[in-house]
């Protein structure tokens, strides 16, 4: 399927195995910060910014790269698009404070400008809801924000779609990004390593009983988690889309430093050949 929408300045090249090739037009801009809101999880924030461009071009699986004044750390850092509000021309990202970029972001004030590049990503999630399919989204850590966006997108385009989000964390107070999912009619299952909330155990413990021939799995989070989810799905003959969040020095395909090995032996650039891959393509 080739569908060039030059008027909208986005172009969808083709789709296969349920994964879309969908490059938004990349733009660098100084967006205005609307708000930086702390979440109940310690050191977690949601940063909302004004960007008509990102709000109209971002899709679930896309990310943006932020450059902050971080002294000797020179690289931009990638963040998944978390929410999109095309009417207000706003998008938001959800982050936890890690190092210099996220520290700087946590201190930004409304009205400040934030240097962003995006939307980035080549292959992204295909949220096209097929009737009767049970969409199971499995996330942990900073894999939760893009899945939250994906879950809401699926529900918005097909209100009768069955969507379950499984969120894993070490402990209860690190669980993030869920309130709006319940509002959107998404089933949410928590898993904690220490049993302080939801299922006591790993996300795969919650996933296993749900896997049926009509399931489709999407996962994003720490690599060991995605590997386990990918392998479990594959063993049950279920399609699984994995979003690989490797270290991405440039985000636009020019450094070849973000690669992951594929089963055919080739090193693939996660920023532009991904970040979303069919789980069965990845040599974990």
């Amino acid at each position, binding site marked *: 399927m080739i569908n060039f929408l030059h008027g909208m300045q986005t172009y969808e090249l083709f789709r296969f195995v349920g994964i879309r090739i969908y490059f938004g037009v990349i733009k660098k801009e100084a967006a205005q910060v609307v708000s930086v809101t702390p979440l109940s999880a310690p050191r977690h924030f949601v940063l909302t910014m004004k960007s008509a461009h990102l709000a109209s071009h971002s899709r679930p699986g896309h990310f943006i790269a932020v450059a902050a004044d971080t002294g000797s750390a020179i*690289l*931009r850092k990638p963040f998944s698009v978390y929410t999109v509000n095309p009417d207000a021309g706003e998008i938001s990202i959800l982050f936890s404070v890690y190092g210099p970029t996220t520290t700087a972001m946590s201190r930004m004030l409304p009205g400040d400008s934030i240097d962003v590049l995006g939307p980035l990503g080549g292959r992204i999630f295909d949220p096209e809801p097929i009737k009767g399919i049970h969409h199971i989204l499995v996330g942990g850590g900073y894999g939760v924000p893009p899945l939250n966006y994906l879950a809401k997108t699926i529900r918005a385009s097909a209100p009768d779609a069955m969507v379950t989000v499984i969120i894993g964390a070490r402990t209860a107070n690190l669980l993030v990004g869920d309130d709006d999912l319940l509002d959107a009619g998404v089933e949410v299952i928590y898993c904690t390593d220490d049993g302080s909330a939801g299922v006591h155990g790993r996300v795969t413990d919650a996933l296993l009983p749900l896997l049926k021939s009509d399931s489709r799995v999407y996962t994003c989070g720490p690599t060991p988690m995605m590997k386990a989810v990918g392998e479990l799905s594959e063993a049950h003959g279920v399609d699984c889309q994995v979003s690989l969040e490797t*270290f991405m*020095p440039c985000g*636009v*395909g*020019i450094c*070849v430093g973000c690669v992951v090995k594929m089963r055919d032996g080739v*090193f693939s650039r996660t920023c532009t050949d991904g970040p979303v891959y069919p789980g069965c393509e990845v040599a974990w």
Partner: protein
Amino acid sequence: MSTVNMTVQIGSLKMRNPVTTGSGTFGFGSETKDLVPLDRLGAVTVKATTRERRLGNPPQRIVETASGILNAIGLQNGGIDDYLANKAPYLRGFDCPIIVNVPGENPNDFAYVVERLTAAGAADAVELNLSCPNVSHGLDYATDPQLAASVVAAVRKVTSMPVIAKLSPNVTDIRVIAKACEDAGADALSMINTVVGTAIDPRKRKFRLANITGGLSGPAVKPIALLAVWRCYNTVKIPIIGMGGIACPLDAIEFMLAGATAVACGTGNFVDPTLSLEVIDGIEKYCVENGFADVNALIGAVTAA
């Protein structure tokens, strides 16, 4: 319309302005098409193209260090056949000279790739990567004047395109290599390639790069690069393309003052893919503000403190 003459000359290669891209830091030109119209660049220097396709090194390939990055990509590229079939046609769609970076394991490899490029008219100049520290034997040619000269001479025989020898800073005296390349027929020099180094994760007690060693680039290497340019400028007569840590227009001006005829934006592209455009505009503005009618007047114009 500005009145500054921005054109510079690298051998027979005419550049509309002194700014190109560092090989391996700008892909093959199409990746950032939304951001950088190629016909604004003085030239585009594309990623290394080898005789055979190369898969490259396993990850982790790049790590961030203070004011720079260490990389060990291992020359991942589709090989000369892929370049001619899939990359060159795109690049030729723009009014922008193409400089192809060519590594090799022996002089024949270099000559083979350059011959193919010449026959196909798929480049306007070649840059010999004498100094890629990330592949076995890759360093040899840049650290020994005779070996470096042998590669330049082998390539000189098979092409009339400008031949640019790219030098490594990982030597005792870069001037010796520079002179050897000039004598062997190089039309220009480019410098510096990355500085070898490594990084360790103390918590995991492991090397951070799968390849152990990598090449340091970015602002951290700029002082090393500037001195290399200044020393070679005073040693050879052929033009120099200066690079190493350029992150803003004034960095590029420093390179020109040290003796570079042209400059390349490298790692800075990762931070801001539009850096080269900013540098072009900034150089022109600097010339206007400081009363230079010709950008060439900047070359080597630094004086003692």
